[in-house]
């Protein structure tokens, strides 16, 4: 006779893994399709045993737009993240270490800017961008994404900075460190893990953003989200190639996401759930 705790654990294992596998299945199915030939990919009944091929990955690499879009995604995510960090770190530093009566309301106000639905301001942003020539440029998306994520980043950085022991900064001040030195040589190295995970969250959000990228780019500055959507028009059957392109597009962010689960919860709920 099996003991009850073990039986319970086995049942839980079965149920939980069933749920996990169902949820992961679409990603898995895409991954499998990326190693099939185009004909195998659309075969009915679906092929589970097939001769794997890497030809789709080779074909994707050869498409000029793909490489261009991948570069755009990297450049835009990095650019927007750096810009937001440059704006956000000083603000979070000031609010965490020199709080005033207004600090709390400033934080909440910043947060409230995040509540503006993008569709509500699509028209003016589109027209402004058209007038200053920012449509379909990397700079345009970098600005939008930096502004879009700035509230979350200030918020996260603020919570991380508050966890830095104040004594260390005080000691630095007694030794005569200027405010700039304090920020660059004490605070930033001390809270590097926090800054890194803030940056990671920003990169994830920029990489997957699909409202502004679809509406404000056409070809030159199109990141991977927009590139992938160009496959939605049924111009022949390219499922296997699409799967390969998609797999490459989501792989880095999936890894980043898995690495930063904890900070993700904190960042996305503005610290309301820790």
């Amino acid at each position: 006779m099996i003991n009850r705790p073990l039986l319970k654990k086995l049942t839980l294992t079965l149920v939980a893994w069933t749920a996990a596998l169902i949820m992961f299945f679409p990603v898995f199915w895409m991954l499998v399709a990326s190693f099939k030939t185009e004909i195998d990919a659309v075969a009915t009944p679906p092929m589970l045993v097939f001769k794997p091929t890497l030809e789709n990955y080779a074909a994707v690499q050869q498409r000029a737009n793909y490489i261009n879009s991948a570069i755009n995604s990297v450049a835009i995510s990095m650019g927007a993240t750096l810009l937001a960090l440059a704006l956000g770190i000083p603000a979070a530093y000031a609010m965490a270490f020199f709080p005033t009566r207004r600090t709390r309301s400033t934080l909440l106000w910043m947060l409230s800017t995040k509540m503006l639905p993008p569709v509500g301001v699509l028209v003016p942003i589109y027209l402004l961008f058209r007038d200053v020539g920012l449509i379909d440029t990397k700079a345009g998306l970098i600005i939008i994404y930096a502004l879009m994520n700035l509230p979350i980043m200030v918020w996260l950085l603020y919570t991380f900075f508050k966890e830095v022991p104040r004594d260390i900064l005080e000691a630095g001040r007694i030794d005569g460190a200027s405010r700039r030195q304090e920020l660059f040589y004490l605070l930033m190295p001390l809270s590097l893990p926090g800054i890194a995970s803030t940056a990671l969250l920003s990169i994830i959000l920029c990489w997957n953003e699909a409202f502004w990228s679809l509406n404000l780019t056409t070809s030159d500055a199109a990141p991977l989200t927009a590139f992938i959507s160009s496959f939605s028009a049924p111009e022949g059957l390219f499922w296997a190639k699409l799967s390969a392109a998609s797999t490459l597009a989501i792989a880095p962010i999936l890894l980043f996401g898995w690495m930063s689960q904890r900070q993700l919860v904190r960042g996305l709920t503005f610290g309301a759930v820790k």
Partner: protein
Amino acid sequence: MMTALTKTRRVNTLPLITPSVLVLFLWMVVPLVMTLWFSFQRYNLLNPSVKGFAGLENYKSLVADSALWTAMLNTLVLVASVLGVTVVLGTLLAVLFNQEFFGRPVARLLIIAPFFVMPTVSALIWKNMLLHPVNGLVAFLTRSLGLEAIDWFGNWPMTSIVMIVSWQWLPFALLILLTAIQSLDNEQIEAARMDGAGASALFFFIILPHLKRAISVVVMIETIFFLSVFAEILITTSGGPGLATTNLAFLIYIRSLLEYDVGAASAGGVIAIVLANVVAFFLVRTIARSLEEG
């Protein structure tokens, strides 16, 4: 001594905070004012000769247009359905994943994966590989059960969109509710068990009340995102068939970037902003409360 030190070094924080506040202020106010302004203008990009103050005309024609009400209803159905699915399943899965079982860390990684898949990719996976009426896996499964293959996006368009968006956001609800459950005091549960509380009593009288705030945060944050669902619709149904999956976001997109009617689109935008603000009000209040608690 320390307070004295901080006090003697009065720091001017203005140069540090101002850049962030200023850009966010511009980012919020400029487009907002422009949207409001355009919503009272006759302004069509295709017809530059038609210009001038329109008064409430854009709003009147928008309200008279049945497309707006269809879109509002669709938005409501989409938001409510996905909220229902993600919160209920998310809570159950969070309880499940809080238990000990074999391979939990790996199962956890797998189940949260959909959240990191970009919307355009998940829309295409579902459209081409799962729900496609001829080559899709679901069509194969229903056919092997002896049933007809279902044309999901043709006959059940809203259900299909709800499935896709739920798949993407269930991991978000799970992740947050799981984090919240883990902060539950184990001694409290043990004590309740000692007193003879069964599994369902434990769930309804201890776990669920503990999750109240986390659930309301999930509901509010998801609502703000679901009000603007766009890529999934653009890629799978383009708002159709007819207007069956046109939500407010998609209607504004049609009016502005496809029909170039800036005035009408802006009036729609104002409605979207008002809707989001109702939710935002409660969200900010909840978060402010948690800020005070530290």
